[in-house]
């Protein structure tokens, strides 16, 4: 590894470590990352007789989606308000390193949170080793993709977390309903299925539906490839959006 690549890696890890220490226990992170998907799931399940197999894909996808997008939107408004962002950008740390470090912390939060539904799925459904491995790969891919999605949501130059969370909720809620979280993509009406193809969450949900119940539209590898494509798109969009709004934050 070259000297500069080594430095960038250290900077990314230092930023991620700082985020883990500072932002994991913040109220909005816990509310939107843990409580929200839990109660969302309960509101869907309570009073309905459903097999665990039909519950798990939606639960895992929802936990990945909400927890991966919970930390990123908290960081930038708080760092703007506390003027710590100005300190970071006056150091020899490129903006992409800051964004990658923040996203790494978001993805790690998602991985930790997702262990609960994945373990539940393993215990209730009795997954094979191959199913578990692909589920874990899906969780990792989803965590990275949606960490940058959360990062993109935090680009507006505001210093109030509530503003970003409100904006995020306006985007995230419709995505949950159109992405085949509770009803597999194959069972969605054709019109909604067409719209759902525009959402990156659709491919993660379809991946889990396919792995856990066999009810999927796309091959698991195609789903993973599309998620990877979305990840690249979101990384670029997030970087461009933050570069554009950075001066307005100071």
């Amino acid at each position, binding site marked *: 590894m070259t000297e500069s690549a080594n430095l960038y890696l250290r900077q990314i890890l230092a930023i991620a470590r700082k985020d883990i220490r500072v932002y994991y226990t913040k109220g909005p992170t816990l509310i939107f990352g843990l409580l929200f998907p839990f109660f969302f799931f309960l509101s869907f399940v309570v009073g309905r007789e459903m097999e665990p197999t039909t519950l798990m894909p939606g639960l895992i996808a929802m936990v990945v989606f909400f927890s991966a997008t919970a930390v990123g939107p908290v960081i930038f408004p708080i760092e703007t308000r*506390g003027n710590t962002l100005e300190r970071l950008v*006056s150091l020899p740390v490129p903006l992409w390193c800051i964004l990658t470090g923040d996203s790494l912390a978001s993805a790690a939060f998602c991985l930790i949170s997702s262990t609960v539904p994945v373990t539940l799925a393993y215990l209730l459904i009795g997954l094979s080793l191959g199913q578990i491995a692909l589920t874990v790969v899906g969780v990792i891919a989803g965590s990275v993709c949606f960490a940058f999605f959360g990062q993109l949501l935090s680009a507006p130059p505001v210093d109030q977390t509530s503003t970003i969370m409100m904006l995020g909720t306006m985007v995230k809620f419709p995505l949950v309903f159109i992405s085949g979280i509770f009803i597999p993509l194959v069972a969605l009406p054709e019109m909604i299925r067409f719209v759902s193809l525009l959402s990156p969450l659709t491919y993660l949900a379809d991946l889990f539906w396919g792995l856990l119940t066999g009810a999927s539209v796309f091959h698991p590898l195609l789903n993973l490839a599309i998620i990877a494509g979305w990840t690249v798109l979101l990384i670029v969009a997030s970087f461009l959006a933050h570069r554009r709004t950075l001066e307005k934050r100071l």
Partner: protein
Amino acid sequence: MEQVIFAEDIVKRYGDVSAVDGISFSVQRGEIFGLLGPNGAGKTTTVRMLTGVISPSSGSISILGLDMPASANEIRKHIGVLPETANVYVDLTGQQNMALFGNLYGLKKDAITERSAQLLRKMNILEASNRLAKTYSKGMKQRLSLSMTLMTDGEVLFLDEPTSGLDAESAREIRGVISEMADEGRTILLTTHNMQEAQDLCSRVAVINRGKIAAIDTPVNLRRTFEERQSVVMQFAQPIPKERIQALAGVGEVFVTGPNVRCYTSDPGMVLTGLVELAEELGIKVISGSTETASLEDVFLELIRSKGERR
């Protein structure tokens, strides 16, 4: 001498408003250069442009011979920046804040440990370094913030209002550290709205207001201007004729509003005595009297005026 900081005709516009309007100056190696001006004068915007945090609308900047912002990342490896507020991570301990900055500067683990201990000891916060920064006083936070800036051992330091809002003791300690850093050969650009601080620390000072530089001079020369802009403010029971006041020794400009009088002077004591004697002679009672030092706005106006007269 080598120019370490060079700014030529830099402008920063936000819409139709120019926060900085055509500033030019240079700072030599080893110099403490002050940007002196009231709040909102454009000092912080200037520092942000010099450190590449924001880009100038026009003009050119060079730090250590490299163009800013084109070579921002390379330049930042050799500079330390202390922004205006004591912006440390309050949810991290002092030690964790130091380690974060050490890692971001790319220092090795041993170097981080050694340098952190050295700086925190120097700033008198070593014992508190395992406590969360949210438990620190404002002065402690500012000392921690300055320690974080110094983790890089940068040869050029940009310190934006380093003593603003601190108690006298903390401010004195910070000034002491700045002097030591200068003695170690660092080039320092310091912004302040405190004339005394500029005089005590800086070898040269640029007076800035409304985004423009009015003068660049040594503190001694600028102080002469300040002295001429001291004033005596008095209130009498009845109005006193302006021509009688102007006839007094040592009086410069005079402003009379009813029974209220303001006289600009370089010798407030003499003018105060003269005004009291004049009031006694006219049989008018003195209600109140005080002396005031020049505000930065006064100094700026005086500098603008004297520049105009020289032309």
